[in-house]
């Protein structure tokens, strides 16, 4: 990262232009520099401590997906008007002699200036390219600003793990889904982090494996841990997983039996059988432990018990997939596994140009289940 200085908002584009002009003049035959841009990525946060973290995320992200990053550090509670910018660049090497550079514009904005923010951002966007808005924190706290920004955004990204009042939040988010369904695609990182679990679940039921057994599943247990204060967000992630299974396998919700540690949800399968699912909150095994730890899908029938188990092995950074038939276990697959960074999650999501219908189906199912757990 290089070249950082403070500007008024109207000077930003001039400053960027002169920066690229200087970069062009300093290029040599041994070292060339290209300016690359596939999209506009706007990141909004009200946590000033995020600044360094976000710069690192952007630096990692632009290596795979060059873009113009506009980072907004907002302090809504500050009463003095302020809207100032700094400009910096991230450079990455392509081969021995070539550098690719992307810009990051950081906007610092105080409460009274939040009204100007939306129009200021629109002046800074690279034309023709998609516009992604990643909202760090609870976006429902800034509805007025959100209402101004969503109309020009291509994809809205948020992290549902920060949600606290699911009963209130989920219907509100569903409302945004409906209102902007034609123009905005939605990404929930709480869903994105389920991707490996969904991949490994699918692995069991491919042709040549246990293709037929998928329709006989009648018990699912999702064991998860939560960081203190985020219990609801992690429970929602586990619920999204079950909701995804239910939506894809055409299970119909029946009832639920909530308690403090375990939520029991019942469904009717497409074969008419009862499917029981459990969301089980485990105590943290260490201070940082979080998220789903183990999933057991089972067929429990008289004389026939079969489990499909996906389990994290934290020590060896593995995901172990195994099957258990009438008491006998065998390893199905062992896969190296590391949690995705935010930059990875962004990269995967931004590769998708259209709305994610599978997510939307799962979210709709989860929204239906929320009042019952």
């Amino acid at each position, binding site marked *: 990262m290089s070249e950082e200085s403070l500007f008024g908002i109207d000077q930003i584009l001039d400053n960027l232009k002169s920066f690229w002009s200087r970069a062009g003049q300093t290029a040599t035959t041994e070292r060339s520099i290209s300016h690359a841009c596939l999209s506009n990525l706007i990141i909004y946060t009200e946590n000033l401590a995020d600044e360094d973290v976000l710069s690192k995320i952007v630096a990692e992200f632009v290596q795979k997906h060059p873009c113009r990053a506009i980072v907004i550090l907002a302090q809504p509670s500050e009463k003095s008007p302020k809207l100032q910018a700094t400009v910096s660049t991230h450079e990455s090497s392509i081969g021995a002699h070539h550098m*690719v550079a992307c810009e990051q514009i950081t906007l610092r904005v105080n409460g009274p200036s939040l009204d100007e923010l939306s129009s200021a951002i629109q002046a800074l966007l690279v034309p023709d390219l998609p516009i992604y808005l990643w909202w760090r924190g609870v976006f429902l706290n800034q509805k007025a600003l959100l209402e101004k920004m969503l109309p020009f955004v291509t994809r809205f990204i948020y992290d549902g793990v920060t949600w606290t009042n699911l009963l209130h939040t989920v219907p509100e988010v569903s409302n945004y889904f409906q209102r902007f369904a034609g123009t905005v695609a939605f990404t929930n990182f709480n869903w994105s982090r389920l991707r490996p679990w969904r991949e490994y679940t*699918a692995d069991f039921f491919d042709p*040549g494996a246990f293709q037929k057994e998928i329709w006989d599943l009648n018990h699912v247990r999702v064991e998860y841990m939560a960081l203190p204060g985020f219990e609801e967000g992690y429970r929602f992630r586990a619920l999204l997983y079950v909701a995804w299974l239910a939506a894809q396998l055409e299970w119909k919700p029946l009832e639920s039996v909530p308690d403090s540690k375990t939520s029991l949800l019942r469904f009717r399968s497409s074969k008419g059988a009862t499917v029981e699912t459990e969301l089980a909150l485990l105590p943290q095994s260490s201070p940082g432990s979080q998220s789903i730890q183990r999933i057991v899908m089972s067929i429990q029938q008289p004389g026939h018990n079969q489990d499909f188990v996906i389990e994290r092995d934290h020590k060896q950074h593995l995901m172990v997939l195994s099957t258990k038939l009438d008491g006998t276990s065998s390893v199905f697959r*062992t896969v190296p596994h590391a949690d995705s960074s935010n930059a990875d999650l962004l990269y995967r999501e931004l590769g998708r140009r259209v709305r*994610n*219908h599978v997510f939307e189906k799962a979210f709709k199912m989860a929204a239906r289940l929320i009042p019952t757990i």
Partner: protein
Amino acid sequence: MNPLREGLVRQRVPEPCTLVIFGASGDLAHRKLLPAVYSLAHEGLLPPYFSIIGVASTTHTDDSFREDMKHAINQFSRYRPINEIVWSALARGMHYVQGNFNDPQTYKKLQLIFEQCDLERRTGGNKLFYLSTAPSQFESITSQLKHSRLSEGQGWQRVVVEKPFGHDLASARELNSHLRSIFAENEIFRIDHYLGKETVQNILVLRFANGIFEPIWKNNYIDHVQITVAETLGVGRRGVYYEEAGAARDMMQNHMMQLLALVAMEPPVNLQPESIRDEKVKALRALHPLSEKDIGSSSVHAQYTAGYIQNERVPSYREEEKVSRDSTTETFAAVRLFIDSWRWAGVPFYLRHGKRLAKSGTEISVFFKKSPGVLFNAADSETPIENNVLTLRIQPNEGVSLRMEAKVPGQVLQIQSVKMDFQYGTEFGSDSPEAYERLLLDAMIGDPTLFIRHDEAEQSWMFFDPILQAWKASDSQNLVTYPAGTWGPPESEQLLAGDNRKWRRL
């Protein structure tokens, strides 16, 4: 169909299978195949139930074969150093059969190992045979597979055949006929690794996913097309093979004709494999055959003499290892051809390939017609203008560029060519999968889109056969040469100069 696959990255997943590699101790297996298999395993793209059986004459035990492959993966894989967990899962299903490809005993041993793998690894009888051997072994191996009944049975059987597919039209037809007597056409995967390259696959996207190009992709707007595959390398240790093949058989008849077909084909009705391959073969079928008289004026072939590549002296072709001292094999070939179709009538395609040229690079350049001879392009203009050129760079610096004309700032009207440039590495990073990864996965899935159909191979030979025969007849009298480190013989420049054109400088 697995309903849980909807929306996942891995929507296409191969069924459990055994990959049988004939020629497993060879260069291709070491450098490309096993590293590609390992990359697929690393990315979780292989089926959970999967095994590999290597077959070759080299002495190996299962363990020493595994060690050998591990070493190769550590040396050539995209994912280095090797991940022990991924490797050990892969190695557990890895076996070796030592034997002669012509010996029925080899196949008895293979059958036993295969049955053991099938049982232990639950591969459902599915087999993918990969013929990574000299072409002379293809018929023998496949015949033995038939006699040992390995080419049939429970599950699916597929065979991947490496190029060259024959050395002329007759031998290509014979090979096709033989393969099709044992396997169905949809079980035969003739591999051309060029088709696995991202930039080659991008030709279809560029043409058919961009509304601006297809309307002008025709003789009304295109002046001519150049396809160049230039190499600074010599034949290296491939002297024996190259003596038999030469530049046209090694590169032009297969890789370059595939590039030509992708540039010239009509839009397919959909993206189904047969729809795409139908259109490619139609383009090849429309190639205007060169008469004996035309061959002299429409083609050039030559051989390199000693010279300098990047300040280093390199020997002549005849001085290369395992090359005859009076060899007449061509190391350079250039051809002008026409396609007799409504779209391409009158548009020449110039193909050029050579070894030991001044620079390495593979590209397709589409030259558009100049604007009409008025205004800036008037006959008396002091600012003559150039063609717009759309260049698809296949390798290196994969990307697309467009040359266009622009006014030089100032009081006087001056026009200069400028370039708009898109580079894959800059926009998308440089970590694309290797061509063999994509192609192996496609073969396991059974998707033949990026493989060559029998009639594509034969159509291509049909065009080149007379040229190769005419070249052979003329060589005894007059072999054209070019110094290493140049762009080929002067005749190559004259081929275009006669049409008031010139080769694009790479």
